[in-house]
């Protein structure tokens, strides 16, 4: 009878992965399901009972995983499961006993499948097998599909930032030669109704770009004659990207170089030109405009005003489908422009000419993972003759302190740990920095280390970057050969625990979850420990994991899961901050899991599970 199982079919069609199951696989599954009832408190699985024999889908009720020991918690099985969720997949796949007692937290009805039918279903259904073997990535894909369809619906065909640049090219590029007279080039631009023209060489490679904006600044106002060749007034070496680069890279490149147009090339030959509007449709606030205004600001409060627009810009970029790490990098770039401008603005008022120094960023800014609300962690690395350090420092400090205050005005709150360039301890010469790091690495107490971890994420923001790279090489060598230090770092990494019993007790606490401390920190710290151990020069958490895979310090499959989980948590934090900003609240990283949808709740749980997996791997590696 075909309609006999309709209510079960209806239920399954509302829950991942069964809603995506191939029709044939669903028809296989349905008649093989058995329904069982478990009274509140009943044990459904038991580690003592030998290899798991049944696959359970919760039809109604809640199941709690009970962890007998801390070890078990590390395996990440101690969760509350809700209707639509399945267990114990790992045990069934591994032909092993469960690690956890699954107990009915309330009267619960389960749909169940025998081990043989579970295996047969996996063999039949790519969707189901995929779900079992890569649960997080699978759920995230689903979530993205949902969000993407929402976003594209919303944007009514507006640009998806992950589509390649090639898809955005609407027309053949309008070109001229570098020696074409200006009059001729302008005529072409008028006839073709374009705002820019690209000068190309014999191989059709772009050598310069000339825009209407340049016409105003470099021709009309300067009184340059129209017989001048384009070469004299064009911007040479325009920003060019390969046509298969995603839209987002285009925006990044424009931001970085402060350009309004981007050349798109195919094997080095010009394929087209994209304006900012082609990339960010439907957006009154432009990225390039913001960067330009920051770079041209004449006072600190102007910069502050510009930075207040960042959340709006970020919202637009997120709507267009950018990944969280890309958004964070974008925010970091904007903040960097702001920092550089503040440095430049304050420079003339202080006597610091002739000192060679580099402005350093620590922590999230160094990792290029700055979120919307962030405090400043910075320092100075200066060059001085031995013995001269104190004199140079005395000249730099007043300016550095002024910069710290100005940055605070711009919205970067003062660092509560006083990790700021205006602090004499963070304004050091190269050898002094080396000495400081050596002290931490060789003699640091655990508390010391906890405070100093953010120093191990460092990057040059302004000034010569080479002394910073030298310092990094120095400290990586130190850490790579000091296992006591790494062990302590790893121990610190265990400090922040992803929350347990996510949908049970904590909900009653009404506190919500701190995504940053409980979710992001384990990944960021874990990536740092691995980077320091394997001498990886990267600072960003994602790049560190990529390099860890190349260095064979991390399995590719694990890395893919960690990337996905970290990206998801970063996006979650961004959203939490956006919400906090809208509502004018302070607590920026708190979220309430019950406010997420069912699918997203599962993604969140799975992400925390990945965080614990990473912690577990480090714990094993360092025998914590």
């Amino acid at each position, binding site marked *: *009878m075909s309609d006999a199982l309709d*209510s079960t079919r209806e239920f399954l069609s509302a829950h991942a992965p069964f809603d995506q199951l191939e029709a044939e696989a669903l028809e296989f599954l349905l008649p*093989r399901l*058995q*329904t*069982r*009832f478990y009274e509140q408190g009943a044990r459904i699985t038991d580690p003592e009972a030998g290899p798991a024999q049944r696959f359970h889908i919760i039809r*109604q009720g809640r199941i709690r995983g009970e962890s007998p020991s801390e070890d078990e918690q590390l395996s990440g099985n101690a969760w509350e499961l809700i209707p639509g969720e399945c267990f114990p997949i790992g045990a069934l796949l591994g032909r092993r006993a469960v690690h956890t007692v699954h107990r009915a937290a309330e*009267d619960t*009805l389960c749909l169940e499948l025998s081990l043989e039918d579970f295996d047969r279903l996996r063999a039949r259904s790519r969707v189901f097998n995929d779900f079992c073997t890569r649960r997080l990535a699978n759920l995230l894909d689903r979530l993205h599909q949902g969000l993407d369809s929402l976003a594209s619906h919303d944007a009514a065909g507006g640009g998806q930032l992950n589509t390649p640049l090639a898809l955005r090219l609407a027309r053949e590029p309008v070109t001229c030669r570098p020696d074409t007279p200006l009059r001729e080039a302008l005529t072409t631009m008028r006839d073709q109704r374009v705002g820019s023209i690209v000068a190309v060489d014999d191989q059709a490679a772009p050598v310069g770009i000339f825009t209407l904006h340049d016409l105003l600044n470099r021709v009309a106002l300067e009184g340059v004659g129209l017989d001048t060749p384009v070469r004299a007034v064009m911007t040479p070496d325009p920003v060019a990207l390969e046509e298969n680069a995603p839209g987002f890279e285009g925006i990044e490149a424009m931001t970085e170089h402060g350009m309004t147009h981007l050349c798109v090339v195919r094997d080095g030959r010009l394929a087209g030109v994209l304006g900012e509007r082609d990339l960010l449709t439907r957006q009154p606030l432009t990225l390039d405009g913001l960067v330009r205004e920051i770079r041209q600001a004449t006072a600190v409060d102007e910069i502050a005003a510009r930075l207040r627009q960042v959340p709006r810009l970020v919202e637009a970029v997120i709507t267009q489908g950018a990944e969280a790490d890309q958004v964070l990098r974008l925010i970091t770039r904007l903040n960097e422009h702001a920092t550089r401008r503040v440095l430049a603005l304050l420079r003339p008022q202080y006597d610091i000419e002739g000192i060679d120094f580099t402005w350093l960023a620590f922590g999230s800014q160094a990792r290029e993972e700055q979120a919307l609300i962030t405090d400043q962690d910075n320092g100075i690395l200066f060059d001085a003759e031995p013995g001269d350090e104190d004199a140079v420092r005395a000249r730099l400090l007043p300016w550095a302190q002024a910069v710290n205050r100005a940055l605070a005005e711009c919205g970067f709150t003062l660092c509560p740990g006083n990790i700021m360039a205006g602090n004499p301890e963070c304004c050091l010469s190269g050898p002094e920095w080396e000495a400081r790091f050596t002290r931490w690495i060789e003699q640091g107490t655990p508390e010391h280390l906890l405070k100093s971890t953010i120093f191990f994420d460092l990057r040059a923001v302004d000034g010569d970057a080479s002394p910073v790279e030298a310092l990094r090489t120095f400290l990586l060598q130190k850490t790579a050969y000091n296992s006591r230090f790494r062990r302590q770092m790893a121990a610190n990494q265990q400090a922040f625990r992803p929350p347990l019993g996510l949908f049970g007790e904590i909900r009653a606490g009404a506190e919500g979850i701190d995504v940053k401390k409980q979710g992001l920190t384990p990944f960021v710290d874990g990536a740092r420990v691995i980077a320091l151990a394997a001498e990886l020069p990267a600072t960003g958490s994602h790049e560190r994991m990529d390099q860890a895979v190349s260095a064979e310090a991390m399995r590719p499959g694990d890395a893919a899961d960690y990337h996905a989980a970290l990206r998801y948590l970063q996006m979650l934090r961004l959203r939490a901050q956006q919400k906090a900003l809208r509502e004018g609240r302070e607590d920026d990283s708190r979220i309430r899991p019950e406010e997420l949808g069912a699918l997203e709740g599962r993604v969140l749980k799975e992400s925390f599970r990945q965080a614990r997996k990473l912690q577990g791997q480090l714990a094993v590696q360092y025998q914590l």
Partner: protein
Amino acid sequence: MTRAAAPQREACAPGRAAFWLAPGYWRFCRARDHARSQAPAGALRDCLNTPPPAPSQPVARTRFLAVDIETTGLDPQRDAILSIGWVALDGTSIDLATAGHVLVRPQREVPEQSAVIHGITDHRAATGGTPGEALDALFRALDGRVLIAHHAALELGFLARACERHYGTRPPLAVVDTLRLAETSRRRAGRPIPARGLRLHVLRGEYNLPARRTHDALLDALGAAELFAALIAERDPTGELPLGRVLFRPRRLW
């Protein structure tokens, strides 16, 4: 199996633990054998040929069939069966593959007020089979199983009437009534029973069972099956409870 009070042949065999109900059980077995001798060859005879389970047998090792019948009214003498739905259980584990549902083409037109309740209109009912075909299908599924129903008296009344009409006999059936089970468990626990508190969907709510569309024979059968599993889990999670303790014994039939 023990032979305590087995009356004729070995068809009926109450367990030793069930002596207290032996007189009733004895009458039940006699009536069942009588019905078997009268039943024409076919599904009902086959079903009656399988010995009924002993009352001492644990629930966990008994096979059940949860059944629900939708009718044109509440009077077995006047009203007709519209559809029958069922699903089998092994112990308390519900086997969804066995779910079955038959529509019955009624001999008279479907009264409007009953069509409102179960959504079976003349048009839909006309696609069904004859009552005889429906009964044959039910008894094939019921072979070797104990019937479960919510408010079983109604189901039994309609089944008895239909069997009389089509097989010329009223077979006594071993039945579990989930309404009675729930009522007993509540009385035993000293809990008050509110008005309408024993309705299927109300009871299901108490055991956190999913809400379902009611007045669909198959879904109500599934609903009764799940409720039965929940009631047994509450009373004895091991399932070692003897079947005799949950059987329903309507005086009129036994």
